[in-house]
C-alpha cells in the first residue's frame, strides 16, 4: 500500500493526523453539548471546523518548538500534544487539570510540550512568540516559534509590532493568521481596512502566503516550507489560513450575525475532516474502516476524559493562594 501512497506523509502519520483532527472535533463537539447542559463554568471558545490548520502546522513541530495560542486554543493544545484528560479537567476547573484548575479554557498551557498557553488577551501571543523565537535563536538548535492569531487580532498593535520585531531580528518566528471571517461577531469586512494579512506581512518585508485552511494537505505543505525556512535561518513569515468556524465566538453565542444557511453550507462543503477523509480514501491509502476505528477510539477517549474530569476533585481552599510566585 505504501507505494500507492501519493501523500508526503506515511500511512501512520496520516492516521495520526486524522486522529488528532478527530480528537479536536470530538472534544469541541462534546464541550458544546456539556456547556449547553450547564456542566462547564466560564467561557469556552470552540475550534471545531479549524482542525486542519492546527494539525497541518503542528505536524512539523517538536516539543522544543514553542507556540503561542489564542483564546480559541483547544485545537492548538491537542495538536501540540497536551493531554486531553488534563485539558478536560482544566476546563471543568478541577485539580489535576493542565493548570490545576487555575487557568481554565482560556489559559491552558504545557510548556514542556512547547505550548506557551492559550491567551485571553487578543493579540498578546505574538510578542511572546517573538521571545520564544529569540530564545530559540540563542539556543541555536534550529527551533522555531509559531504565533497563532485570529483575523481580529491582526488589528492589534502587538501583532503588527511583532511582525516588525521579528523581521528586524530575523527571528525563527511564524505568524499564522487563522482567518475564520469573524472577529468575535464582527465580520472582517467591517473590521479590517485592508482585509489581507499577507499584505500586512508585506508591509514589514515578510513573505506571506494564503492557503485554504480547510485543506489539510495545503496547510501541511505550506507549513513544511515556511517552518523549514525559519529553521534554516530564513527568518519569519506569515501564513494565512482561510477557514471556517462551526460555532460562535464563544458558547452561548446565538450567531444571528451569520447569513442564512451559512452554517449548513460550511458544514457541508468546507469540513476539513470530511475533505481529508475523502482524499485519503479516494487515494486508497486509508480505508473507511480504518477511519471509523479511529472515530470510535476518539469517542472513547473523550468520553473517558469527561468522566475523569467530572470525577476529579475541585481545588481546595488552600490552593487559592499558592503558585503566585516561585519564591516570596
Amino acid at each position, binding site marked *: 500500500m505504501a507505494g500507492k501512497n501519493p501523500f508526503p506523509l506515511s500511512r501512520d502519520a496520516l492516521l495520526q493526523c486524522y486522529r488528532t483532527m478527530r480528537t479536536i472535533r470530538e472534544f469541541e463537539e462534546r464541550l458544546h453539548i456539556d456547556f449547553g447542559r450547564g456542566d462547564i463554568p466560564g467561557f469556552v471558545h470552540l475550534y471545531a471546523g479549524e482542525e486542519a490548520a492546527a494539525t497541518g502546522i503542528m505536524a512539523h513541530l517538536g516539543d522544543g518548538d514553542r507556540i503561542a495560542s489564542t483564546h480559541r486554543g483547544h485545537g492548538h493544545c491537542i495538536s501540540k500534544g497536551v493531554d486531553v484528560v488534563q485539558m478536560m479537567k482544566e476546563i471543568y476547573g478541577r485539580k489535576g487539570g493542565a493548570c490545576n484548575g487555575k487557568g481554565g479554557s482560556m489559559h491552558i498551557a504545557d510548556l514542556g510540550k512547547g505550548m506557551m498557553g492559550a491567551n485571553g488577551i487578543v493579540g498578546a501571543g505574538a510578542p511572546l512568540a517573538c521571545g520564544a523565537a529569540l530564545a530559540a535563536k540563542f539556543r541555536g538548535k534550529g527551533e522555531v516559534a509559531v504565533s497563532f492569531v485570529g483575523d481580529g487580532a491582526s488589528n492589534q498593535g502587538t501583532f503588527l509590532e511583532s511582525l516588525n520585531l521579528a523581521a528586524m531580528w530575523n527571528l525563527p518566528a511564524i505568524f499564522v493568521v487563522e482567518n475564520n471571517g469573524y472577529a468575535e461577531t464582527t465580520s472582517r469586512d467591517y473590521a479590517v481596512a485592508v482585509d489581507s494579512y499577507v*499584505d500586512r506581512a508585506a508591509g514589514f518585508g515578510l513573505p506571506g502566503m494564503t492557503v485554504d485552511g480547510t485543506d489539510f494537505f495545503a496547510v501541511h505543505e505550506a507549513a513544511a516550507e515556511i517552518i523549514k525556512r525559519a529553521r534554516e535561518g530564513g527568518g519569519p513569515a506569515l501564513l494565512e489560513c*482561510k477557514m471556517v468556524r462551526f460555532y460562535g465566538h464563544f458558547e452561548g453565542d446565538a450567531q444571528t450575525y451569520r447569513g442564512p444557511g451559512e452554517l449548513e453550507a460550511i458544514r457541508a462543503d468546507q469540513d476539513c475532516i470530511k475533505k481529508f477523509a475523502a482524499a485519503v480514501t479516494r487515494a486508497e491509502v486509508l480505508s473507511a474502516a480504518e477511519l471509523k476505528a479511529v472515530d470510535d477510539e476518539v469517542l472513547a477517549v473523550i468520553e473517558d476524559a469527561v468522566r475523569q474530569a467530572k470525577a476529579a476533585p475541585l481545588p481546595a481552599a488552600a490552593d487559592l493562594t499558592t503558585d503566585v510566585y516561585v519564591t516570596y
Partner: protein
Amino acid sequence: MPAGHSNATPCIGIIANPVSARDIRRIVAHAGNLQIADRVNIVLGVLTAVAAMRVRRVLMMPDNGGIRAMLMRSLKREDNLHHACPEVEFLDMEPTSTVDDTFLAARMMHAAGVKAIIVLGGDGTHRAVVRECAGTPIAGLSTGTNNAFPEMRAPTVTAMAVGLYATGRLDAQQALAPNKLLEVSINEGQRQDIALVDAVISTDRYVGARALWKTESLAAIYLAFADPQAIGLSAIGGLLHPLGRREAGGLAVHLSDDPSTRKLVLRAPIAPGMVREVGVAHWEPMPAGLPFRVALQAGVVALDGEREMAFSAGDRVRITLRENAFRTVDVARCMQTAAREGLFRLSSSTPQRRPAPWQARIPSP
C-alpha cells in the same frame, strides 16, 4: 441574476481574484505580492475607464479576500467626490474563498449577458474563468504569480478597449481574437478540465499547496503556446522552442533527470526569482485535435501552474490542443482601430457632459 438590465445598458463583468499571487512561491521563491489596495486601485481605474467609454453597469464577483470590502468603501468616497463611475453590482453569491467562486461568477456573468469579462489574476484565474464563461470574451489583467496568458498592459487601456467593444463601437470582428487551449481528459472525459498555457505532468501525485515548483517532480509539459519572455513552467518550452499564441498547434516537452535518456539540460525561470535546470528528453509539436496520451502511471496534472488533477495507475490521461477555443479582447488592435477611426475625438461644438454620478448599490450583508 441582477434585475432590470437590458442590452440598452451595456454591462461588463469584473472578476478580481483576491488570492492570486498569494501562493507558496512567496516562500520558496521570490514571487511578489500585489496588495489588495493595489488590486482595488486597478479595479477603480478600470471602472473610471469604462465609465469614460459609456459603460453604465458592471457586475463584480464578491469575495472575502478584501477586494469587495475595500472597493465598497472606495466607491462611497468616489461618490462623495462626484467621480464618474458605473453602477457596480456584486453578484448574489456567498464566497467560499476557493476557485469555485471564480467558476460560479463566470457562469453567472455569462447568464447575465455581460459583453465581456475583465479578469484580474494570473494564468490560473484566467483558466478558471475561461472554463466556465461559455465563450464570453475576456480581457486579462496580470495580477498573478505566473502571467504568461494575460499580457502586461496598463489596466486603464485594457478597460478602454473593453469599453469600446462592450458599447458596440467596435464589433467582434474588430475587437476579438481567437485563442488556443489544452483540453485534459481522464478516462474518456470522466474528469475533464482545461489549461490556457500549460498542462504539466508531475510525479507529485497530490494537490497540496497547488503551486508547482519542484523541477525534480516534472515529467512532461504540454503547451498551448510557449513565450520565451514568460515566467513559469511554460518558460521551459518558450526557451526550448518558442511558439506564439496565434500560431497553429501546440508543443509537448518530455523531461527526464536520467542522463542516459535526456537530450539536454535547459536553464529556465520556472518561478519569479527561481531559475532552475531541467533535463529535456525530447519535444514534439501538438497538432490541433490530436489527443496525446500521458505516459506517467500515477501523478498529478498541474493546469496553468497549479496542481489540479491527481491520477493513479489505471487512469488514462489524454491531452488535446484545441484552436479557436475562446475569444479575448485584442486590446492592441482595438486601440489602433479606434484611434484610426477617431473614436476618441470629441467634436468641439458638443463639449462632453460629465456623466452624473451613479450610486454604487451595495448588497446588504
